[in-house]
């Protein structure tokens, strides 16, 4: 009797490790993931009967590379930023998408349609501050660097991407020249020198949920943030404000790691998450701009005004230069890490 029980149990466990009826969807966690759960995961499961197992990461490609190389892929759908998408596509880390399983290419904003990933939203990295702790509002990255006028710790995302751009903005480089300057060794040195000025005042964050919490708890006076996370904190009654001037916007994409064991279900999920209604619902939860043209049309104007893509918020903002980061990303990240850990 006991042995039979044990055998059944072992069989059950073994079964669990091989049966793959669910899709594992990896995104950046925090408030954005909560929004995705509401707008995508739950309704998708209700409609298709396929369970979504959510997971989170911070955009690093190493996991995917290791999984694809070992031929043991356990992620089915992953949210990636644009330079990583392009690089991963070249390196054969992602499936080439079959758009017949997703939808009509013309229904999406043009930048969203790529070989290996379909854009899911437009988001922005912007400066945010706690209006309760700062008497005077900062208006630019130059203010971020001004530790006399705005004493206290500041947060930046741990990595070269966006950090170097903000440093150059603070150093007086115009948005349109940022990537031209960064292409030169002198430009890179200039950015790091600028960062050196406030290095002792910086707290580095990795997960997007950290800065709103650190701002709310008073550990930070200002920080770079994913704009969507601030809205969530405001709903919780925290007086956090965004400075759109000098913000950098970019697309995030859904991609399928090559060799996903649940390819068909992964497509079904992506197809669902690219429909106008769920996208509009997601934007209402988290103010990131939708990529499906139909969703853009149905936006509540009040919601539309909070998106990175609203005309008022685009003043002084600019887009990530994907090609620049594809080309120089790895060298700069490595240099950044050596610099930061000293």
């Amino acid at each position, binding site marked *: 009797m006991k042995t039979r029980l044990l055998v059944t149990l072992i069989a059950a*466990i*073994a079964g*669990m*490790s091989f049966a793959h009826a*669910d899709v*594992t969807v*990896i995104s950046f*966690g*925090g408030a954005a993931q909560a929004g995705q759960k509401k707008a995508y995961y739950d309704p998708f499961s209700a409609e298709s009967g396929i369970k979504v*197992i*959510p*997971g*989170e990461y911070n955009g690093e490609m190493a996991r995917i590379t*290791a*999984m694809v190389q*070992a*031929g*043991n892929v*356990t*992620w089915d759908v992953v949210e990636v930023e644009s330079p990583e998408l392009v690089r991963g596509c070249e390196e054969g880390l992602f499936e080439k998408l079959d758009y017949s399983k997703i939808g009509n290419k013309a229904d999406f904003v043009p930048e969203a349609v790529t070989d290996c990933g379909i854009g899911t939203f437009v988001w922005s990295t912007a400066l945010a501050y706690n209006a309760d702790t700062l008497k005077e509002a900062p208006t630019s990255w130059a203010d971020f660097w001004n530790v006399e006028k705005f004493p206290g710790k500041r947060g930046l995302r741990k990595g070269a991407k966006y950090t170097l751009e903000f440093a150059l903005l603070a150093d007086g480089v115009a948005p349109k020249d940022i990537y031209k300057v960064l292409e030169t060794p002198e430009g890179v040195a200039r950015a790091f020198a600028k960062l050196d000025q406030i290095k002792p005042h910086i707290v580095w964050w*990795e*997960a997007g*949920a*950290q800065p709103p*919490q650190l701002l*709310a*708890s008073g550990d930070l006076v200002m920080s770079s943030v994913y704009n969507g996370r601030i809205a969530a904190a405001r709903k*919780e009654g925290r007086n956090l404000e965004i400075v759109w001037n000098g913000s950098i916007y970019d697309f995030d994409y859904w991609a399928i790691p090559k060799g996903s064991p649940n390819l068909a279900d992964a497509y079904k999920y992506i197809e669902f998450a690219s429909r106008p209604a769920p996208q509009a619902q997601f934007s209402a939860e988290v103010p990131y701009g939708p990529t499906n043209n139909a969703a853009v049309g149905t936006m509540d104007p009040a919601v539309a005004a909070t998106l990175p893509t609203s005309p008022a918020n685009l003043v002084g903002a600019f887009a990530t230069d994907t090609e620049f980061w594809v080309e120089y990303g790895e060298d700069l990240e490595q240099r950044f890490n050596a610099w930061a850990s000293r």
Partner: protein
Amino acid sequence: MLQPYASPAERLWYYGLRGLVGLTLLFLVLPILVIIPLSFNADSFLMYPMTGWSLRWYEEVITSPSWQRAITNSMIVSPFATLLAMILGTLAAIGLVRANFRGKALLTAILISPMVVPVVIVAVAMYISFAPLGLTGSYTGLILAHAVLGVPFVITTVTATLQGFDFNLVRAASSLGANPVTTFFKVTLPQVAPGVISGGLFAFATSFDEVVVTLFLASPEQATLPRQMFSGIRENISPAIAAVATILILLSTLMLMTLETLRRRNERLRGVKPA
């Protein structure tokens, strides 16, 4: 005891020592106590002062699919890993105590080394070797890994118990006509059991608190309780963390009490006066 005729210096020593130790104990225990009330917080910040009392965070932990899955996963992985470590570890410990061969010391050192080798190295090594075998992102791989980490605790506790074990008892049993199997269950096992169980408890606690190896080996499907807490602390510090923490504190108190009972029983059996 402080004598009534103690000199001022002796008084200073007496109270100074107790004061210092009191502060140290406060440092050890207070953090654990501080987090418990926050699990009953009414609002969503892990911060004092609390605005009100509620059970909503326990409700969230119990109803949220992620926490549910984490609890289930821990309840699958840890017992199986412990069982594996206990069986293999106990057999090996008996062998190590009774067998004689060259290189025994080295073999013992290797079998105990998972306790010493920094856990990140273990994690990376297993990550690289397990992936091509399809053992990353699987329960099997996670159970094997946790069992390896638990084995040294079983070996050391069982070995220690066996060293105090009088093998004349086995001889006595055989000479009185008991067969080896009966001898094992009637004589050896009751004596060794406390060692096996406390080794098992250590192995269970190790697995139940393991996060680094899990970070590398598990996919979200196998995320265990500590793994989920790790994301929680980084991603979204809410009183839900405090609720899970409170449950874990209760569990560790329970394990501690079991272990203490076992220790006393063991001492009584061996006729050692409780120290």
